[in-house]
């Protein structure tokens, strides 16, 4: 397994006693994430919650690549999640494809839509971006609503249960919650590894430079628009992958997967956890979904609590849970 190389520790921070811990966390981020995910179903109150954390954690990871690392606030990412889910479901139920082909198709279509949406949205300036991505994603939503013979319309897409994944030599029984969890976890782990490599790569440096100072990045010689588009597509592919996993997990695709409310969920989870950090998205998914679980026991109006918490975070803890912890750890 590839070990990501730690960024060189600055001499100025040597006196900081948390520095070695932070460096270690960064260096071993993929194995540590895996460890946490392996243990998750045994630590959380329910299997269902654990699977949701996996899936929405991946969604947030994909979203974070664009929002936290590149600095682009998109409100249209539900399109890629939903497209991944719907494509997988439709491939199985309408075309009789096997699960693997269906998933690949799901990721591919999500990437294609990201290419189109990105190409249209990135040409617009700054703050327009959020509005344009939201509006374009609603175009997809209403199209799916209308194309009900394909998508099931308001009732969502059903009838494509996959109960077993067959591999040469063994098979995974998706009806067993534990096997299903670990099967999904393997995919998420691979995706996390992929993301870690992207973040460490030269491309990863460029998107951060764009986030920090777009005009200077351009003056330094980077084709900023093209880089943003690549980041957008990569992010769309990851959210699409999460969508395919969601479809496999639920065996239905609700129409709401495509609605901007779902996009908003991604934004909230990423910010709550810590935008621009590696662990942040999963922390955020865990926090959000746990809050939903707990608060919905007290009241059906749990959203008002979560929404208020989100507002408080924007005002006072914009770095999110993990980001704030990291920032505190940097001070001696």
């Amino acid at each position, binding site marked *: 397994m590839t070990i*990501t*190389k730690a*960024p*060189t*520790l*600055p*001499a*100025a*921070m040597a006196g900081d006693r948390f520095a070695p811990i932070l460096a270690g966390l960064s260096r071993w981020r993929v194995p540590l994430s895996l460890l946490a995910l392996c243990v998750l179903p045994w630590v959380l109150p329910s299997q269902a919650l654990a699977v949701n954390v996996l899936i929405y954690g991946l969604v947030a990871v994909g979203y974070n690549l664009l929002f936290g690392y590149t600095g682009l606030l998109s409100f249209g990412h539900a399109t890629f999640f939903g497209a991944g889910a719907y494509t997988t479901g439709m491939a199985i139920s309408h075309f009789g494809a096997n699960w693997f082909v269906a998933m690949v198709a799901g990721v591919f279509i999500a990437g294609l839509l990201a290419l189109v949406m990105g190409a249209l949205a990135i040409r617009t300036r700054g703050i327009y971006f959020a509005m344009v991505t939201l509006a374009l994603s609603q175009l997809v939503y209403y199209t799916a609503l209308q194309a009900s013979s394909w998508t099931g319309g308001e009732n969502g897409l059903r009838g494509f249960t996959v109960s077993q994944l067959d591999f040469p030599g063994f098979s995974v029984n998706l009806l067993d919650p534990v096997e299903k969890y670990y099967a999904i976890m393997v995919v998420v782990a691979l995706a996390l590894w992929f993301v870690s*490599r*992207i973040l*460490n*790569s*030269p*491309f*990863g*440096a*460029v998107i*951060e*430079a764009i986030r*920090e*100072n777009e*005009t*200077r*990045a*351009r*003056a*330094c*010689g*980077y*084709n*900023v628009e093209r880089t943003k588009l*690549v980041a957008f597509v*990569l992010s769309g592919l990851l959210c699409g992958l999460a969508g395919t996993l969601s479809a496999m997990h639920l065996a239905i695709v609700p129409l709401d997967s495509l609605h901007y409310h779902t996009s908003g969920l991604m934004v909230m989870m990423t910010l709550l956890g810590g935008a621009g950090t590696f662990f942040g998205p999963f922390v955020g998914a865990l926090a959000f979904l746990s809050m939903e679980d707990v608060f919905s026991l007290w009241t059906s109006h749990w959203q008002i609590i979560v929404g208020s918490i989100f507002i408080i975070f924007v005002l006072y803890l914009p770095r999110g849970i993990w980001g704030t912890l990291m920032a505190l750890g940097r001070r001696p």
Partner: protein
Amino acid sequence: MTAPILSVRDVGKQFGGLVALKGVTADFHAGQITAIIGPNGAGKSTFFNILSGALRPTTGTMRFQGADMAGVPQHQYVHRGIARSYQITNIFPHLTAHENVRVAAQAFRSRFDIWTDRARLAEVSEKAAATLAAVGLADKAGTLARNLAHGQQRALEIAIALVADPVLLLLDEPTAGMGPEETREMVGLIEKLASSRTILLVEHKMKMILGLSDRVLVLHHGELLADGTPAEIQANPEVRRVYLGQSDGYA
């Protein structure tokens, strides 16, 4: 007479009804330090923005190393050999000083790469480290750019432009906000840089300019008022009139 490295002909810029720059014509020769001076609003920033590709001129042409720069996208300017530092510090705040310069150096490794660990790009890192050392920031390599002192940020500002190893270096008020000691250091740095490249400099500190430059251009209300050696400019009556009463503390 060798061909000028940079040639602008009748360059002008209009923003709606406002004419920021009008009919500037000048040639710049390799290896020289040219200062561009003028009161606030004279058009210096606009001129620099055009030279660095951040703005398209509404009139006129610009030729660099013989090539017409019309239609060249801004991000290609540095690849052609023109780099620029900014008057208002324009760095990458949450990246370390080293990373600020390293990412600028990385731009010349033009492959699309989402897989290699960038710490493995040794030449890029070394180039960055060398440039940081050249501007005197070697010991601050690991500090976040936003945590650097003002003078250090100005040095970083220049390092980012410098690491591109440009043929033409545009420095926009490099000593902005600096005291006499730091200004002297910056002048020393600029003199050292000038030995291997052409430098255009926007500045307000008269004494510094007159001592440092080979040539001075004076802009006023968007037009080229005077163009000559420091001695010629100092003697020019119109320039004296424009600058009467306009000296800053270090002039």
